[in-house]
């Protein structure tokens, strides 16, 4: 293999699995260390700069960081990153706004319209306001937050938390046009904005229009997202005792748990696929099951049974999943008699669709075959050059953190566009390597790996929480439990940097490494090297760090996979050929050079 180019800014970034997996690349280990030191304000600000909504995401993020966490490869469970984020948010001081960037009095003369008031739009506003842009926000709701408000139930995300963090951005000087549903893109374009950003999400719930009985039972059949919004806005305050929720995603989980709180006693989730393939996050499935909501897998909806104009139940066909050689799944009927389930109401949460009925076909914005806007690579610019898309509106339904990441990129594009610069020449991430050595065995970071298991989070008493949909279920880590959890972080941002010219090949690092990550062997192809290392290197996504040739003709090969970043290689190295250096990787934001 060729020597690893550690100057490649993505190399060490990739070693920080959590940060790399996060769409907004939040510097996770850095803020976890700050929480460990009870420096909650700084921890909050690191999050705020990167992901804009620490308190919200600390509760309801999809957590792509956690499955990526290295801790789960050396132990059972990942670090509870999401809940630690909440610890930072819960313990921040009251006037955290004092740390926010100043908003210039003198504007730069550019006006931007944001259509939709969700996380993507708010991120664009947050990034552009400090640069002197004037920002107008349009949304049909009475306040900001978009789907974070209308879809995420209050028992997962309290109104107070949402209001605060959305408020931070609105208070930066957004001109809001709430209760204002934009009906025509042509009218918006006529308003002479320098750029427009569309962050209208994927607002349409997928229905099952062709299922027999759908029309007749309509009064008792609701689309999940619309129903959730109606609950939030108090248009709906109760539900029948027997409820079937169709669908296996996070919206379905929110629907069934909300139904339990509105009077649903026998609430069931029914999914077509095997349970293991449900799209919902594992913890949301657990939460639903804890609230006595059973999951019926491999049940394909057959028809709605309506008697005397009233929905009384549904038929389901039982199937089993079969997989062909390519792993492609087909659901094959088992031939068993159809299953009948009684119900009073049905919530359909089988997916969401993008919908842009308000964008006229002839305004110059192209859409593809799936109804999604045609966007230029990574710039979020549509075919109409001053119109940008982001969040679910850009590439279909994802999640909040992805919307935030889109917002950052779109803000960069809008800024470049308004300054008349090329959108292709984008600011780079800010990276920095910083030595951590204080003494022979003293480091600027806590390198002693803690054996604690993942801490469990306290929850509200079930009977109590099922009575009131506004009571938050998860109570969050306190400072003490939060501190214990921070100790589990392996500090993957503190990199093992190898300087080949200093190495005397004494093998001290090889012998001392508890994970046997380090090898001095004859070079070969990556495929062959992976079979020859001290410990098997089966995780192909995890890079091998290969040095230049050493005096004996061998090379140093380190498998990054389960490196604990404990620094013992560096402590045992007589020549400091190994050094522990903290890698800082900050994503570019609008206005960065």
């Amino acid at each position, binding site marked *: 293999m060729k020597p690893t180019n550690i100057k490649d800014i993505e190399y060490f970034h990739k070693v920080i699995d959590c940060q790399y997996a996060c769409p907004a690349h939040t510097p996770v280990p850095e803020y976890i260390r700050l929480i460990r030191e009870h420096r909650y304000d700084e921890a909050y600000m690191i999050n705020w700069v990167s992901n804009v909504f620490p308190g919200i995401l600390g509760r309801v993020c999809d957590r792509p960081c956690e499955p990526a966490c290295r801790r789960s*490869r*050396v*132990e059972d469970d990942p670090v509870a990153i999401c809940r630690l984020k909440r610890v930072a948010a819960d313990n921040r001081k009251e006037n955290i706004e004092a740390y926010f960037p100043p908003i210039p009095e003198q504007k730069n003369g550019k006006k931007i319209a944001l259509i939709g008031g969700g996380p993507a739009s708010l991120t664009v506003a947050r990034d552009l306001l400090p640069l002197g842009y004037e920002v107008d926000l349009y949304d049909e709701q009475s306040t900001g937050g978009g789907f974070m408000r209308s879809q995420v139930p209050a028992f997962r995300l309290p109104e107070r938390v949402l209001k605060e963090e959305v408020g931070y951005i609105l208070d930066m000087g957004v001109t809001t046009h709430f209760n204002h549903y934009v009906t025509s893109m042509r009218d918006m374009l006529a308003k002479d904005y320098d750029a427009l950003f569309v962050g209208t999400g994927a607002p349409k719930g997928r229905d099952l229009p062709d299922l027999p009985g759908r029309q007749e039972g309509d009064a008792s059949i609701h689309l999940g997202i619309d129903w959730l919004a109606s609950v939030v806005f108090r248009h709906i305050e109760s539900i029948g005792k027997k409820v079937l929720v169709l669908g296996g995603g996070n919206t379905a989980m929110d629907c069934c748990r909300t139904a339990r709180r509105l009077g649903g006693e026998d609430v069931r989730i029914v999914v077509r696929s095997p349970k293991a393939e449900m799209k919902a996050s594992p913890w949301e499935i657990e939460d639903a099951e804890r609230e006595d909501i059973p999951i019926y897998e491999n049940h394909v909806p057959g028809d709605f049974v309506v008697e005397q104009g009233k929905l009384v139940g549904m038929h389901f066909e039982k199937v089993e999943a079969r997989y062909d050689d390519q792993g492609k799944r087909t659901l094959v009927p088992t031939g068993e008699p159809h299953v009948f389930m009684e119900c009073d109401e049905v919530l359909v949460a089988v997916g969401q669709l993008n919908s842009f009925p308000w964008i006229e076909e002839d305004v110059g914005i192209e859409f593809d075959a799936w109804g999604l806007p045609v966007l230029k690579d990574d710039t979020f610019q549509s075919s109409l050059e001053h119109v940008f898309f982001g969040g679910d509106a850009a590439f279909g339904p994802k999640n909040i953190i992805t919307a935030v990441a889109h917002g950052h990129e779109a803000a960069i594009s809008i800024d470049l566009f308004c300054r008349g610069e090329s959108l292709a020449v984008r600011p780079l991430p800010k990276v920095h390597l910083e030595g951590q050595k204080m003494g*022979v*065995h003293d480091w600027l970071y806590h*390198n*002693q*790996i803690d*054996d604690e298991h993942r801490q469990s989070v306290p929850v509200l008493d079930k009977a109590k929480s099922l009575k009131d949909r506004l009571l938050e279920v998860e109570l969050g880590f306190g400072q003490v439990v939060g501190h214990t959890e921070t100790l589990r972080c392996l500090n993957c941002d503190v990199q093992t940097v190898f300087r080949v010219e200093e190495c*005397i*090949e*004494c*093998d*001290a690092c*090889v*012998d*001392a490494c*508890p*994970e*046997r*990550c380090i090898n001095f062997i004859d070079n070969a192809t990556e495929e062959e090297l992976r079979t020859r290392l001290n*410990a*098997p290197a*089966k995780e192909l996504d995890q890079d091998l760090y290969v040095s230049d040739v050493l*005096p*004996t003709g061998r090379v140093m090969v380190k498998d990054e996979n*389960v490196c*604990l970043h*404990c620094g*013992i290689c560096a*402590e*045992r*190295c*007589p*020549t400091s050929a190994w050094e522990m250096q903290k890698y800082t990787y900050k994503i570019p934001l609008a206005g960065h050079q």
Partner: protein
Amino acid sequence: MTFFRPSFRHPDLPPNESGYYLKDYEGGISTLCAGCGHDSTNAAIIQACFELSIPPHKIAKISGIGCSSKSPAYLLGKAHGFNSVHGRMPSIVTGANMANRDLLYLGISGDGDTASIGMGQFAHAVRRNLNMVYIMMNNGCYGLTKGQYSATADKGSVGKKGDPNLLESIDLCEIAIQLGAGFVGRSFSGDKRQLVPMLKAAMSHTGMAFIDVISPCVTFNNTPGSTKSYHWVREHSEATNTFDYVPFKQEITTDYEDGVTESVVLHDSSVIHLHKTDSSIHVTDRRQAVDALEEHKKKGLILTGVLYIDPDSEDTHHILNTSQQPLNTLGEKDLCPGNEALQSINESCR
């Protein structure tokens, strides 16, 4: 110095045939200087014991005094151990070995502990062909007392203080061969590819297996003029042979050219295959072995590898015709068979 070692180990590391993991052969955290050759030697011992699947409790590690003799603290935490008096490791092993012949005895010593204060002990343990693996970590200096030259430092070698060593050195391998050791080898802490199989072969040998491991002292004797530095040893060593150690149970699958491979079968039916550069030298010939050492010394080279093996060597127990059953398991009835037995012995002598 490192004060802490994480408890996590690579989840994909396999166990050995006895069901033990590498971790089961580890010891405490090393307090030796960072980069010390002894740490590598210890790691090689751990690896060899793991690969041979020896249950850790069937091993006894015994040492004298010195940097190297601290090793029992750093390896085989679940084995029996004894950190004895300076130079007296061979006596302790002799006693332990006499009491319980069923254990694998690892004697760990240094150049000071063996070639100076323990020279007499060394000589007699070798002469008796005591069944043990005698690992002498050789750095040519007294690391614990600020790096004075030891008796194995080569004449003319220059350590950290800058004055050359004026005295002749003792070659313990030559002496061991002359005194009747059944297995003699020399290796280098920085060459695990040679050291680990050599240790495995030594552990399978019955009788005295003496290994001189050149193990650089990074603090006092890793200077450009030192003949025991990492750099010097790498530049000036020549191996007698490369070899494979094949445990008895393992099928032999490698093929080598005829005429250059010499196979030596050990007591436990394991085999050492030696792939030699010079096919005329026989590793089982004591005189040739000594000659080869001297010739290389004359050329300024360090000869490494398996230097001498006597496949028919007989250890102390065999020579003295001791009880097959370890003494420590003999009960009162065995040891005091009673008056009747005494009378019959007396009768037979009349």
